[in-house]
């Protein structure tokens, strides 16, 4: 296959070489959409499978995604990048009173590696601050993380605030964090819950479709 090398380089996560290989394929007369679909996206599909089967570590997956972006950048004139770039714009943050951010950061990085545009609102984010961010950025996803039993009610308050400002129908609300579960998501009327970053990506993709 013409793109074997490219696929390999994306998996290894060498961005510079990915960019060079993309250029080589363009020079050889391959079209940008072909390189994208049969090369870069095909490679990321394999990466996704290897993450699932634990053949690749998460940081390796993140590197591959970065390498793919570098390859994409080479073709930005040939591709109408806005069409390629996903239609997902996510505001993500940890709720008020809660300072845990390691899980939130991982979800945020994996979301952007899956093509979402991610706006990180940080930690200790109050309901009105979440909603203001959604309004300001025109996001169509709100992702909230809570690691403490005592801060989970902030998710409910944020959803109420969204409703009050007439924004609830515009955004998909997804939630996660250690004490959170599907039952709680249902109770709040959130659009989804995921127990880890991999599942969070699947969830976001399914809601985007």
């Amino acid at each position, binding site marked *: 296959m013409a793109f074997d090398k490219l696929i390999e380089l994306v998996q290894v996560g060498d961005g510079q070489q990915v960019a060079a290989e993309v250029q080589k394929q363009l020079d050889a007369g391959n079209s940008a959409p072909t390189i994208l679909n049969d090369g870069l996206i095909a490679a990321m599909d394999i990466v996704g499978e290897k993450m699932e089967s*634990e053949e690749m*570590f*998460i*940081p390796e997956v993140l590197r591959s995604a970065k390498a793919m972006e570098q390859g994409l950048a080479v073709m930005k004139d040939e591709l109408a990048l806005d069409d390629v770039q996903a239609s997902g714009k996510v505001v993500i943050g940890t709720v008020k*009173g*809660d*300072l845990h*951010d*390691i*899980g939130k*950061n*991982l979800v945020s990085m994996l979301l952007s590696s899956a093509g979402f545009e991610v706006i990180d609102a940080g*930690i*200790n984010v109050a309901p009105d601050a979440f909603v203001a961010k959604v309004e300001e950025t025109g996001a169509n996803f709100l992702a909230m993380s809570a690691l*403490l*039993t*005592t*801060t989970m*009610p902030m998710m409910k308050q944020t959803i109420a605030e969204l409703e009050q400002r007439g924004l609830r129908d515009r955004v998909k609300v997804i939630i996660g964090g*250690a*004490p959170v579960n599907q039952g709680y998501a249902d109770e709040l009327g959130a659009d989804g819950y995921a127990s*880890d*970053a991999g599942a969070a990506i699947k969830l976001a993709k399914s809601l985007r479709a």
Partner: protein
Amino acid sequence: MKELLQGQAGVRFGKLTDEQCAKIHEASCRLLERVGVEAGHQRAREILAQAGAKVTGERVRLSRDLIDWALAKSPSGFTLYGRGEEHSMPVEGTNVFYGNGSETPIMIDHRSGARRQGTLADVTEGIKLIDALPHIDFVMSFALPWDLDTGVVYLEQFKAMMANTTKPFAYVAPRLSDVEGMVAMMEAEAGGEEAHRARPRGLSYINVTHPLRHSQEDLEKLMFVAGKGIPLVYNPAVLRGASGPMTIPAALAVANAGELFGLVLAQLINEGTPVSLSGGTQDKLDMHSTIDVYSAPENRVAFAEMANWYDKAHWGLGGASDSKVVDEQAAAEAALSLTLESLAGSNLIHDVGYMESGLSNSLAQLVVCDEIIGWIKRFMQPLEVSDETLALDMIERVAPEGDYLLEDHTMNHLNDDWYPRVFDHRTFDKWTAAGGKTLSERAAVRVDELIRKHEIEPLADALSERLDEIIQEFKASE
């Protein structure tokens, strides 16, 4: 370096040499000098600036002099006191004490095996069991009740602790107001602030958001507790590869830098404040599942060694498993971590009985851990080699063909040996006759037996009422 106290075990396991410890200390000092800490609390920055720290914006850089000064000022140990005269714990030297873990969102019901949210009744029962367990020396809150308002949950839970155990505490809460309320409750019990400072009931466990970025909340708690001059541990979290570097020495250097920063601030606020070192929450982040792995072999021992090298008390972790049920994995992970942390000379080993990455707690697992600790305590006893224990006169009398069963010497030492309560050392027939139960089943039975039999003197009415007032005073509005 910590000296072995008289009468203590000569067993001491470590992986770091003194030179390696010194190198890590140097690395931490360099980080504090060159990178510094982003400190999100204005008064903290002012106090540090006054003491000569270099403050630019929120960034605070410390000189070695200041670090050395603080290390010299902070005591190498402290004592925690139980209710009344019982259970005093000298946290120093190679003394090792064990405590359960706090506030898990989930618990495993020992009766039904169900994984469920805990209630205040569960916490009350749990604390009562912990009070009864012979080898759990200090107490944390077990599970976080879901049947209480979030504004009072930490304080109500703490009252349940005060009412149901006479052992010392390690206490922890997200909000400063909760920590203030808990301290007020212990002061009420002790008969005032001074009386409590003289005989502190607990250690304040303060978790720090990032090793080199300390939030307002982290610093505010440190300043409050140090202001009281009562024992604390200021513990920066490093999940290697995510919130800190991937290799153990680097992660240790970074976490240690964060801890030294806390130590300096604590001594500036109140010289002589007892601070226990922890080496940080150095958990392994599983880079497949993204679980914070409590039981990983990488987590253990080096952190205790740094505290030993500084000659400070150490806040350690052991007896925590990542298994979801009380099974073989749970027992093995508990045994390995408890053994290693004990051998390393960690003074306060907490999170005993934790399951599932700190997300659940199980009373049956605590009983299993209590048994393991009994085994370890017996093992850790020094071997005395004396006329009495060599017993040469007796051997010469009995040997070569006699047997020792009826000897006084045998009688006198029968009770030296360790006998299990839930591990099974019976014959196969006896074990079968008793129901052929597995370890986890036997542990669940013992939980109920202990809870049923154990009595504890209730709080005096006046104190109980006072604690309720304090809860109202300090409850959070949301």
